[in-house]
């Protein structure tokens, strides 16, 4: 009885707290008038329309899967109920989303919210030019790590619900490792030995979907990041200033060469350039392959497809005698508001609404994530997420991938990696060709120093 009473007091306190939060945060208030006050306070002009307004939120199909939290239907329904503003999601095919958004931004026919990865947006959508500066929004001061959201110019152009909790690493089948008596390798030499044993057991050591261009770079992500974080802290800045070239970094060539060796030694099938990501589940389910250079998302995918397979992760072992680190991606799925949006105030309301504790917590039920604001509940992470957090993030064994520091699109580099695997370029030639292309792209992007 006492317990129940305690619980109901707690509940009442929570409700009160939420009401207060709503009052000062704005956005999720129970009625329109408070909202209106909030809006007038912050912008001084446009009040939300009295009749029903529909804001649009545009995203590529894959990104919506990778960063699903902002699309939680329960949150969208609640927003519509509270504000009478409807939210319509536009999903573009992946191969078109960049062109569609660029075109729409440059012709001012934009949606009200553009969902795009942070750095990619800066490089490909010219965020600073086309998007509203949201640095003054109420949720900014509640961010756990506001610096992570800042663009190179120091402004914040978008909101994101989740802090990174991903890991680019080697995924392996625990059962196969057990059967063959293998342990997780901690150096390149150990890794080669593990591959050799698996190969001799008649299983392909590594399934590599190199037909998808973005896949080989995962081999480089952690090791490159290690070099740039631990050994040459000014590396990315120097490269972006044009004072260091990719081909002048011997570690890069070494890392590429080691990756290529996996193909040359037959640990990666020569057919890898024909294989794509969609074929991976089949290869793992039929135990045709033991490992893949991929990331946590593949482990989650497989959990859905075949829960009986137990997969684990370890960092890309491209070095001997150095710390091995997982790599984390740039901020994914950032919500930007274009300057040309039809309903910018309603879009801001929506972002603020999502940043509130209830919405943060509600979105957890679809797929747990690390909240980006400091007043949301701590998530109950999946065992895999917990492992990533405990083993790598808490212990500082995670680096941010190179892509997050680049000011140009890297697709061309990835094509050179494919060339290298096909035997058309040596690692050195890859880096030299990329230096040339990089300079071209940097100069097309009006970057100083090029």
């Amino acid at each position: 009885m006492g317990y129940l009473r305690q619980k109901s007091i707690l509940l009442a306190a929570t409700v009160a707290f939420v009401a207060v939060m709503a009052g000062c945060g704005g956005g999720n208030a129970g009625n329109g008038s408070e909202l209106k006050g909030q809006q007038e306070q912050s912008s001084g002009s446009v009040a939300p329309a009295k009749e029903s307004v529909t804001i649009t939120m545009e995203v590529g199909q894959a990104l919506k899967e990778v960063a699903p939290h902002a699309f939680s239907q329960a949150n969208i329904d609640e927003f519509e109920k509270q504000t009478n503003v409807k939210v319509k999601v536009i999903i573009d095919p992946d191969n078109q989303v960049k062109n569609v958004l660029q075109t729409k931004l440059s012709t001012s026919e934009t949606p009200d919210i553009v969902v795009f990865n942070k750095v990619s947006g800066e490089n490909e959508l010219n965020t600073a030019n086309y998007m509203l500066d949201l640095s003054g929004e109420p949720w900014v001061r509640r961010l756990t790590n506001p610096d992570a959201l800042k663009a190179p110019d120091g402004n914040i152009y978008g909101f994101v619900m989740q802090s990174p909790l991903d890991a680019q690493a080697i995924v392996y089948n625990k059962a196969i490792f057990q059967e063959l008596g293998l342990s997780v390798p901690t150096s390149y030499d150990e890794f080669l030995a593990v591959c050799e044993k698996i190969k001799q057991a008649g299983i392909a050591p590594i399934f590599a979907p190199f037909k998808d261009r973005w896949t080989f770079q995962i081999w480089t992500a952690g090791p490159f990041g290690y070099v740039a974080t631990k050994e040459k802290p000014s590396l990315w800045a120097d490269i972006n200033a044009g004072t260091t070239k990719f081909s002048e970094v011997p570690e890069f060539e070494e890392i590429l060469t080691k990756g290529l060796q996996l193909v040359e030694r037959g640990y990666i099938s020569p057919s890898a350039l024909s294989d794509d990501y969609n074929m991976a589940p089949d290869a793992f389910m039929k135990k045709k392959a033991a490992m893949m250079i991929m990331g946590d998302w593949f482990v989650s995918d497989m959990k859905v497809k075949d829960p009986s397979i137990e997969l684990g992760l370890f960092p890309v072992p491209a070095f001997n005698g150095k710390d091995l680190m997982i790599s984390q991606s740039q901020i994914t799925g950032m919500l930007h508001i274009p300057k040309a949006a039809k309903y910018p105030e309603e879009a801001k309301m929506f972002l603020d609404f999502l940043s509130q504790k209830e919405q943060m917590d509600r979105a957890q039920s679809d797929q747990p994530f690390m909240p980006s604001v400091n007043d949301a509940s701590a998530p109950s992470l999946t065992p895999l997420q917990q492992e990533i957090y405990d083993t790598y993030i808490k212990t500082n064994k995670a680096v941010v991938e190179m892509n997050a520091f680049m000011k140009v699109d890297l697709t061309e580099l990835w094509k050179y990696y494919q060339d290298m695997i096909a035997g058309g370029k040596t690692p050195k030639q890859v880096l030299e060709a990329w230096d040339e292309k990089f300079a071209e792209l940097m100069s097309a992007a009006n970057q100083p120093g090029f």
Partner: protein
Amino acid sequence: MSLIRKRAPLLLLEAVMLLLSLTVIVPFLIMIFGSLKTGLEATAFDLTLPVKWMWQNYKQAIVEGDMVRSFVNGAVITCAAVALNIVTTSMAAFIIARKNTRLSGFLYYFFFIGMIAPMQLIPTIRLFQSIELYGTYLSVILIYCSINMAFSIFLYTGFIRTTIPQALDEAAVLEGASLVRLFFGVVFPLLKPINLTILIIVFMNIWNDINIPLFFLSDPDKWTLPLSVYQFFGMFSGSSWNLVFANLVLTALPIIVLYLFCQRYIVSGLTAGAVK
């Protein structure tokens, strides 16, 4: 004896052709079987019969892909654009075919540019913004109609020149028919084979297109059928290939029906327009 000698090569030919047709049928079967498998089974992309025939995939694809609405959108846009295309280009081609002047020669080449010049997206968007039609069904109908004009005029001109005798026009005019009456009353009905040919080819071009709605219809509720397939790529972590296949089969279905309906005209229509 001579009958057998005559029939034997034909039977052999028939056997060879049937065998050859397998190269066409097999890929189609992969798609159709795939649409009736479970999601897991369909990831193999192979030529095996479904373990269990999942007819409900089709229902799921229709409901989750909101295919009814996009079917209606596609039908409205495609039919309007095709109708507008056929009426305007057949009229234009009639004159271009009949007149033998410099101007008609110029017009023939001028319209042909549409077959070889790439469409300029951003200038086209700006155009529709300036006449305040951007984002409307009408803008998309006008675009589809225009970008397919070259092909239609190309075929119509050839057809009219080679198969519709000019004496016919003269007779009609002698009877007091106006030019418009002459064209719609006398010439247009004679164009039936080529009309149906152009109908199916232009219909197919528009029906299968995904680019124009993506760039010109900012409201996804106005999108057409082929775009609905993207709902199933990557949905629920990883793609639902069985639903992707079901969606693709359903998207192709209207064209297959239309094609079967027009088949005999297609052959004779293309002949007459181009050939002879």
